């Protein structure tokens, strides 16, 4: 299978604001330490762990919105550590779809316009945009709500619009950071099922983070993080068991 993501011994340290020159060892905090993982096309993968375990940091690094302190990450075969900001931006635009914890829809745009946005910045023609937006909204079951602004949608509907926005440009990879954190259990389960369904039907690769253990039952592969370290990978454990 084609490899979509390859994380090789990646660490990420953040400087502390009140760092002291006399104590350089305490001048940063380590969010991720020597993390490695490989993701192949079409996987549906969960990154699990408690708050502060480094899930968001790992997703940010894979999503090219942050740079590792050490190590390297390849996305669809491209070494992101070698890329200039403009190329990183292009990579995100073309290869990655994002779903955020707080939905992050543009409030002055309708649901359809929000879904259209990734196509707009790629310069897709208006006719093609219309068709693909309709398809994406159809796939998340929100065709009837296309002309509503986000403030008139429920939390579950907003997150489904965000999923439609993440898949509309047919990215190689969809990253979802705690997509169910602001949803009730029913909506959360529905969303995970929706993403899983899209993963199967469209062959899209999904990586999502969660700290909700109940959602992990719906997931084929789980990577667990604790204190910035990968402590388990169900695919490896499964492989070793088999």
């Amino acid at each position, binding site marked *: 299978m084609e490899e979509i993501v390859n994380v090789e011994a990646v660490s990420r340290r953040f400087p502390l604001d009140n760092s002291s020159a006399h104590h350089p060892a305490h001048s940063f905090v380590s969010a991720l330490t020597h993390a490695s993982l490989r993701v192949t096309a079409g996987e549906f993968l969960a990154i699990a762990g408690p708050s502060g375990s480094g899930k968001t940091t790992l997703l*940010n690094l894979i999503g090219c*919105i942050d740079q590792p302190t050490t190590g390297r990450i390849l996305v669809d075969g491209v070494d992101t550590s070698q890329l200039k900001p403009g190329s990183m931006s*292009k990579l995100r635009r073309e290869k990655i779809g*994002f779903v*955020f914890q707080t939905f*992050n829809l*543009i409030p*002055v745009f309708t649901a359809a316009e929000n879904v*259209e946005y990734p196509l707009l910045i790629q310069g897709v023609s208006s006719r093609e945009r219309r068709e693909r937006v309709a398809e994406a909204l159809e796939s998340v079951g929100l065709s009837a709500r296309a002309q509503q602004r986000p403030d008139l949608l429920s939390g579950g509907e907003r997150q489904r619009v965000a999923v439609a926005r993440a898949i509309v440009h047919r990215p190689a990879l969809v990253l979802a950071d705690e997509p169910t954190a602001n949803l009730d259990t029913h909506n959360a389960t529905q969303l995970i099922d929706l993403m899983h369904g899209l993963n199967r039907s469209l062959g899209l690769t999904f990586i999502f983070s969660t700290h909700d253990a109940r959602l992990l039952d719906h997931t084929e592969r789980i990577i667990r993080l604790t204190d910035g370290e990968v402590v388990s990978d169900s695919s490896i454990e499964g492989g070793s068991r088999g």
Partner: protein
Amino acid sequence: MAKFLLLAFRNIFRNRRRTLMTLFMVGGGVAGLLLAGGYFAFMTHGLREDTINSGLGHMQIFTAEHFNRDENRVLDTGIENWRQVAASVKTGSHVRGIAPRIDFYGMVSNGTKAAGFMGSAVDPEAEQSLGFITYIESGRNLDPKPSGEVEALIGKGLAKSMNVGIGDGLTVLAMTSDGALNGVDVQIVGIINSGAAERDARYLRITLPAAQRLLQSDRVTNLVVGLDSTENTDRAYAEMMPRLNGLSQQLVLKKWIDLATYYNQVNSMFNGIFLFMGIIVFFMVLMSSVNTLLMSMFERTREIGTMLAMGTPRAWIIALFMVEATMLGLAGAAVGLVAGNLLGALLNSSGLHMPPPPGYTQPMPFKVRYVPLEMVASSLLVIVSLAFASILPAVRASRLRIAEALAHV
């Protein structure tokens, strides 16, 4: 592109109260500039037409030596064949008429007291046909062909200082071309109040033949040309210049703008004040808008982070903020244009007057003119100011660290 502009447009109305405040401020600036500029334009336009109609005319013809003349013997450098010159010039397009003049200096005496005067000898019919205003406060204008004594109009101040009135006599003394002192008795038939106190304190007017007899010369110092409209001055000037070539005397043609010293001073002063006001409005809009736009940027930090995360080029973010500010400027300018014109109309119908300016005795009407160029300039000023104000927030927005922006609460 259309969607991008739509996004910018809708963003303007996200915080309606703040947008409204900005529109009031920008609109107020534009309206203020329009009212001030319109009032200045009204003043300068009025002053221009007053200056021309009070006898300056649209153009004047002099001899080349006139500007180096001896003020005691003004006709030494006067125009000889002025009737021929006038006839040649009169046939030009836009020319309404020609008025010959002698501007001369001398002394007036009432037998017990003498004072210097600044005289003007005119052809009353020619002056009247050109619509020149004489500003007679009391009495009547000069009779073009008086049967008896030489008639004179004198300034209000001169009449007061000489303690004379209508019907009284004065002796006018001036130097002839030969250098001899000559005198003529005149009878005062009218008192002039031009509004300019300094001028009225020395002014005397008699008919052209009377002055030629007094100065013993048939020359004139200048020919005043009246046109159908001030706007045609440049065109008429270009056409008239060749007609003055090839004459026995070298003649010079001057436009009203070259002779209207006071008008030019006032105009420069108003332009300076308007420029100063424009600079104040520019910085006022700039400083307050920077703050407003920074607040808007700060509130949208996570949204900008999301847009950047999705791969929006940073230049788009800069453009988005600048387009939003420019649209706000356009809307503010529109508000200002409407408000400024409405207030202007209200002011024009109010009949308000301003106190007379220094050196003048008549109150000035408080009116504004509609000057399209000022409307365009004022609008552009605030639009550019807002676009400038958006640079800092736009650049800061485009430089946000995506991960930090996404975590912004």
